[in-house]
């Protein structure tokens, strides 16, 4: 049987990025009951490289939006791996905690993180609608532009 979500990804022309494997004593994702907790992910592009730089100075808000979109796709990659390849098991994207690498006077974090929210709704429809928090950080690991952690509910 064909996966609904994989079909949807194909329709959207989206190829998910490679799964980033943590190189330390923590996991990319952890399951408790029917909730999947995903570690903070960065903007991993299809070729495995990362989007880096401060939004508002090195990157425009639009480029930040694209970075957030890449980050959400990395969350989807992590989810697919954690659910043994079956994205149709996802019942709801529950919560995103989104961090934008930006200067002290930057105020457009929501417009940046919409890049993540929009693509999750494009892929998962209403199940992609989540609660979220968006904040600015003065720095992020290896200089990535966006980092997002997530909680996903599944069957």
């Amino acid at each position: 049987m064909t996966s609904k979500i994989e079909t949807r990804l194909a329709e959207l022309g989206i190829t998910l990025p490679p799964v980033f494997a943590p190189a330390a004593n923590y996991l990319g994702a952890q399951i408790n009951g029917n909730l999947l907790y995903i570690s903070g992910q960065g903007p991993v592009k299809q070729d495995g490289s990362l989007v880096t730089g401060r939004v508002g100075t090195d990157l425009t808000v639009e480029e930040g939006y694209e970075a957030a979109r890449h980050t959400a796709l990395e969350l989807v990659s992590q989810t697919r791996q954690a659910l043994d390849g079956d994205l149709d098991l996802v019942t709801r994207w529950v919560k995103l905690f989104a961090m934008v690498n930006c200067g002290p006077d930057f105020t457009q974090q929501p417009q940046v993180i919409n890049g993540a929210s929009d693509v999750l709704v494009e892929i998962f429809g209403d199940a992609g609608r989540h609660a979220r928090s968006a904040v600015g950080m003065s720095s992020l690991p290896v200089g990535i532009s966006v980092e997002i952690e997530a909680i996903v509910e599944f069957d």
Partner: protein
Amino acid sequence: MAGKIDARLAELGIEIATPAVPQANYVPYVISGNLVYISGQVPVVDGEVKFKGKVGDDVNVETAAQAARACALNIVAQVKAACDGDLDRVKRCIRLGGFINATPDFTDQPPVINGASDLLVDIFGDAGRHARFAVGAGSLPLGVAVEIDAVFEIS
């Protein structure tokens, strides 16, 4: 019949406003099982964004604590909506995440977020006692001084 918590709110002279609806592809809260995950709330008062500024610079701790209280009032408004208007269904505030738009050297995060914690205990009594974190963020959406997200347990 007015509920216990509604009676308590009346005693405290607190009115819970109609909660704000996000203008993007996310939602104010998601219910998963008996948990309500509430999106980061900012100090919107009577439909207007208040308490803008940098704590440790142009906003002092006392004013920032009022901003945290305003965030908590919006959290209560969201949890009320999640409970279909019946705040007596709140079993516990599980966790608050408190972000303060602060200068790099600011260290008084706890007394700021106490503005939210104290309000929740005033309203819900022991059920309002929660785990929390309180951190300085480099910047916040719209330039607000404080943003707080929350997880509640409901029946």
